[in-house]
């Protein structure tokens, strides 16, 4: 058990010894992996099967050679991006959170900031049991909210469409991501400016002098993150 645990635990849990709690947590993690794998495989089968099922209902199955060509064009970029996301986000989100986040998607624009915010609110540290639980709760909740909002929205799609697609509101919804990252920038840069200034300067200059990279911003997260982590490590070593 990490020392980050609640000093005033639940009455029910207080009767358990540390060893029993550890055993419970290990059992929880084992079943998380088992369920995570099972559900991921089932969702994969459904998602890959749906186009064939829909195609058969339409009387036209997918053109596999065209799909293969298109994959070589755009899919490889996303394959590399997915590898980077996997390596970066699993330590952030924990195992349960990662299974859910990769099943439900929208990682950059929702799940990761949402889990990080929840983690900050409760003061959980990465790699702890508390972070594992908080992250899973956060991602499950945000996924359910998205599912409900989308389901309600789809039901109301026809009457809502004129309002939501009104040109007056378009700039607001086109700017969801800048609005999010502006807010997160203040939250994370504050108190970490000696680290933040360098990736911000380097990435800005890179995008200014090689504007072609702007369309590959999701790939550029890798060098941006590497600079920040490198600096953080340097300060960490220096401060020890």
């Amino acid at each position: 058990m990490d020392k980050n645990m609640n000093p005033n635990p639940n009455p029910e849990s207080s009767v358990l010894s540390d060893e029993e709690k550890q055993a419970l947590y290990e059992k929880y993690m084992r079943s998380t992996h088992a369920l995570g794998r099972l559900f991921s495989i089932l969702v994969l089968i459904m998602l890959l099967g749906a186009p064939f099922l829909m195609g058969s209902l339409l009387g036209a199955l997918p053109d596999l050679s065209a799909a293969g060509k298109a994959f070589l064009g755009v899919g490889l970029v996303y394959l590399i991006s997915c590898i980077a996301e996997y390596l970066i986000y699993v330590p952030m989100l924990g195992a349960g959170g990662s299974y859910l986040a990769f099943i439900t998607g929208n990682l950059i624009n929702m799940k990761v900031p949402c889990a990080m915010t929840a983690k900050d609110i409760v003061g959980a540290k990465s790699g702890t049991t508390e972070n594992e639980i908080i992250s899973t709760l956060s991602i499950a909740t945000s996924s359910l909210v998205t599912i409900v909002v989308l389901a309600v929205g789809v039901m109301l799609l026809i009457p809502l469409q004129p309002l939501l697609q009104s040109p007056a509101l378009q700039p607001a919804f086109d700017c969801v991501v800048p609005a999010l990252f502006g807010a997160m920038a203040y939250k994370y840069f504050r108190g970490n400016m000696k680290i933040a200034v360098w990736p911000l300067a380097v990435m800005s200059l890179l995008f200014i002098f090689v504007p072609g990279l702007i369309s590959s911003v999701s790939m550029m997260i890798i060098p941006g993150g590497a600079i920040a982590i490198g600096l953080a490590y340097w300060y960490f070593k220096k401060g020890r």
Partner: protein
Amino acid sequence: MSVLSRLNSPVFYLICGGIIAFVAVICVIFAVRAYRAGKAIGMDVTKMKRTIIASATFAVLPSVGILLGVIALSGSLGTPWPWLRLSVIGALHYETQVADVAARSVGLEGLSASGMTAQAFSTIALLMSFCIMWGMVFCTISCKAYSKKLNAPKPKKEGGGKGSGLMAFGDQAMTAMFIGLVSTYIGSYIGSFVSGGEGGVLSFTGSLLPLCVAVVGALAMAVFIFLKERHKAEWIDSFSVAGSMLIAMTAAIFLGKIL
């Protein structure tokens, strides 16, 4: 009956809605298990409830944005498929791009309702699924081993105690990674304005809107943090990100008219 009408038929809603319902059940199972496990190992129930409330409030605004993505794609792919894609596994900024490339690969001029055929749709749908499934695949194959490796106790170094070495650095590394991620996006907004316009490098003719919206979002967050610290009101944290986004998005409507 046109392809689009067939794509919006009840059976398609049933297929996509069924998969979404299954994923919703998965989320409920994971949430309940995590809550019970947290309680059993002695976590503060208040903290877990705060997490649920904060995450729910946080998710509302981005979800509305995602809903707009469904609406945007529904004109060419029907409503059920974009509804599925953006509820499960997909990402708002990704779907349109892949759908467009897939449409071109099957001979269409781009993603549009007018040229859509049954085979074009099923090919586009397959590619959309295939391109972004890898995170899930890697999780299935190696999340257990990767997590084990991350949580494995590192050998103690001379002069170090508990919490020394890379494990102690882990939390700072995650914060740093997020700083790098945010810096990259903010840098792209600066680059878009300075060199992303028709005039090219250093022409200052690109769109200033994303950068201004990000600045408004940052200022709004500064106010939320100030209020939280001034009044020692921790609850403000639950609404600070969503509130800042809402303020910045509202500002975008007005800024869009000026810029």
